[in-house]
C-alpha cells in the first residue's frame, strides 16, 4: 500500500525536517559570534540565536519522533484513530511553532533554558501532547503482546507530559522562592525530559531494526526489556550529575552518581546483535537507513565515554561549565538522535532504493567527518576553559575567550560544514525524483 505523502505522519516528519534545517542555520550563525563578538549583536545576538537554534533542534527531535511513530503505527496495526484529532494534533503544534518563533524574533522571552518562549505557548504544546497520548492509546490498546518499542513510546509519551508540567512549576512563586530547590526541580525536569524523548527515539530505532532485519526477535527478547527498564530507571533518576556543583542535598548527588551510565552498555549490546543479523542484500536495499543507524552506533561509543567521565563528580568538576557539556549535548542530539531520526525519515518517506547519487553518498561521510571534527574542537575548547578555571591568579574571562579563538574558529568552520552537509542530505526529501512514496508501506 502506497502511503499518503500528505498523511499526518508524513507532514510531521516534513515539518521536523524543515525545523532541522532552521536549527542548523541558526546554530551556524550563532557559532560566528565566538569569532566576531559583535556579529548581529544589535539584531539577534546569542540571546535570540541560541533559543532559535536549541528550540528548532529540540522540536526537530520531538516532531520527527512523533511523525515516525505515526507512520510506524500505520504499518503495525490496522486499528484506526480519530482523523479529526490527528489534524488537531498537527495544528496545535503548528500554532505553537508559529508563536514561539514569532516571540524569539521579537525578543519576547520569559521561559527557562531550552524552553525560553513565553509560557503561554507551552499550553499549546501540552494540549498537542495530550492529543498524541489519546491517539496513541486508540491505536495500540488492542495490541497484544506489546513489543519493546510500544512500551518505550508509551513511556516516552506519558512521562514527557508529566515532566513537561513539572518543567513549569516555576510559574507558581512558591516553587521559585528557594533558589537551590528551584534549580533542583529545573534540572531534574531538564534531565528527565531528555530521557523521555530519548525513549521515543530509541523506540523508533528498535522498530527500524525489526523492519530492516525482518526479525521481530530484537523487540521481544529479555535483553530488549532489560534495556528498556534500565533506560526508564535512568530517565527517572539519572539527572543529578547536572547538579554536582549546586549545593543541593547530598542524596541528590549520590543518586545521580550511583544511577549513572548503565543503560548505554545494554543499548550497544542490542544494536550489536542486530548489526550481525542484517544481510548484505538488506543493507543495500535500505541504503541510508542502515548507514545512519550504524553511524548512531558509533556516536553512542563517543558519548558513552564522555558521559561516563561526566558522571564521576571529581572529574565532572573539570568538565562542568565548559564546552565538554556542549560536546556531550551535540554528540547526543546530532550523533545519536538525529542519525536515528534521519534513518527513520529515509525508511519511511523515501523509496528503498540504491539510486542515490554518488554525491549523496559522499555527503553522508562529510556529515560524519565534520561532526567528529566539530566535537573534537568543542572538547579542545572545554580543555582550554577548564585550565583557566584552576589558574591562580585567574586571568580575566575576556582574555581566556580571546586565547580560545583558534579552537573556536575550528568549531565554527566544522560546524558550518556539518550544517551545509546535513541540509544537502535533507534536500533529498523534497526532490521530486525521490518523493514518490515508499512502495513497501
Amino acid at each position, binding site marked *: 500500500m502506497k502511503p499518503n505523502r500528505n498523511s499526518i505522519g508524513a507532514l510531521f516528519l516534513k515539518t521536523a525536517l524543515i525545523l532541522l534545517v532552521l536549527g542548523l542555520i541558526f546554530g551556524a550563525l550563532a557559532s560566528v559570534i565566538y569569532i566576531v563578538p559583535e556579529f548581529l549583536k544589535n539584531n539577534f545576538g546569542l540571546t535570540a540565536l541560541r533559543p532559535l537554534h536549541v528550540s528548532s533542534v529540540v522540536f526537530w527531535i520531538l516532531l520527527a519522533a512523533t511523525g515516525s511513530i505515526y507512520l510506524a503505527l500505520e504499518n503495525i496495526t490496522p486499528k484506526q484513530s480519530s482523523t479529526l484529532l490527528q489534524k488537531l494534533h498537527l495544528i496545535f503544534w503548528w500554532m505553537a511553532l508559529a508563536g514561539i518563533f514569532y516571540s524569539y524574533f521579537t525578543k519576547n522571552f520569559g521561559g527557562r533554558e531550552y524552553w525560553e518562549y513565553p509560557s503561554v505557548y507551552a499550553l499549546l504544546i501540552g494540549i498537542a501532547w495530550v492529543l498524541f497520548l489519546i491517539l496513541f492509546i486508540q491505536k495500540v490498546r488492542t495490541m497484544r503482546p506489546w513489543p519493546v518499542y510500544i512500551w518505550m513510546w508509551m513511556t516516552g509519551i506519558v512521562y514527557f507530559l508529566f515532566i513537561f508540567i513539572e518543567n513549569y512549576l516555576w510559574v507558581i512563586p512558591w516553587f521559585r522562592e528557594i533558589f537551590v530547590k528551584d534549580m533542583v526541580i529545573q534540572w531534574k525536569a531538564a534531565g528527565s525530559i531528555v530521557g523521555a524523548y530519548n525513549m521515543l527515539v530509541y523506540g523508533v530505532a528498535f522498530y527500524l531494526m525489526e523492519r530492516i532485519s525482518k526479525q521481530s526477535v530484537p523487540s521481544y527478547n529479555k535483553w530488549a526489556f532489560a534495556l528498556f527498564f534500565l533506560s526508564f530507571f535512568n530517565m527517572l533518576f539519572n539527572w543529578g550529575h547536572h547538579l554536582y556543583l549546586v549545593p*543541593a542535598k547530598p542524596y541528590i548527588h549520590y543518586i545521580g552518581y550511583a544511577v549513572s551510565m548503565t543503560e548505554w552498555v545494554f543499548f550497544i549490546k542490542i544494536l550489536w546483535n542486530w548489526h550481525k543479523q542484517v544481510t548484505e542484500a538488506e543493507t543495500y536495499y535500505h541504503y541510508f537507513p542502515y548507514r545512519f543507524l550504524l553511524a548512531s552506533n558509533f556516536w553512542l561509543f563517543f558519548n558513552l565515554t564522555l558521559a561516563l567521565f561526566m558522571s564521576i563528580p571529581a572529574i565532572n568538576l573539570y568538565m562542568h561549565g565548559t564546552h565538554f557539556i556542549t560536546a556531550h549535548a551535540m554528540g547526543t542530539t546530532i550523533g545519536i538522535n538525529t542519525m536515528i531520526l534521519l534513518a527513520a525519515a529515509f525508511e519511511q518517506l523515501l523509496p528503498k532504493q540504491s539510486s542515490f547519487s554518488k554525491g549523496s553518498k559522499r555527503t553522508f561521510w562529510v556529515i560524519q567527518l565534520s561532526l567528529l571534527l566539530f566535537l573534537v574542537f568543542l572538547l579542545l575548547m572545554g580543555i582550554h576553559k577548564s585550565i583557566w578555571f584552576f589558574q591562580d591568579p585567574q586571568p580575566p574571562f575576556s582574555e581566556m575567550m580571546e586565547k580560545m579563538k583558534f579552537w573556536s574558529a575550528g568549531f565554527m568552520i566544522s560546524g558550518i560544514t556539518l550544517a551545509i552537509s546535513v541540509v544537502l542530505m535533507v534536500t533529498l526529501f523534497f526532490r521530486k525524483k525521490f518523493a514518490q512514496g515508499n512502495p513497501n508501506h
Partner: protein
Amino acid sequence: MKSVHYIAITYIILSISYLVLSFVIYTDTDTYQVKSQEIDVSTASQGRLVWQKYNCQACHQLYGLGGFLGPDLTNVSQKGFFYVDAFLKTGVNSMPEFSLSEEETHQLFEFLKSVDNTGNAAPATYNTFWNGMIQPEHETQP
C-alpha cells in the same frame, strides 16, 4: 502472560519511587543560605523572572549551568550593584546594552545576591574525596 505481570510490577515500582522522590524535593523547606546577607525573598523571586525575561541564561551560567559565551554569574553580586548595573547599561563585546528599568535592575541584583548567598561556584574552591565525590571548601564530607 507471566512476563507481562513482571513488566507491570517493575513499571509501577519505578513510577511510585519517582513520585516519592519528586514529592520529597517539592516539599523541601531548607533555605540553603550559607552567607549572612539579608535577602528580600519576594524581590529576589521577581528578579528570577527578570533573568528569564532578558534571557541572561543564553550566555551566562549559574553554578556552571547555562550558556558559555559569558562568565558564570553565581557570585557576581560580590562586586556590587554598580558593577552589575554598568554592564547592563553599556554592554561589552557580544553583550548588548539592556534597557532594564531601575526596578528590574534592583530585582535582578537581589536575585543574584540570593544566588551568591547559597555558596561558591568556582571549581577551584571544591575539594575532592576518595569516593569521587566533591564538596565546597567550607563544607565537610558527609
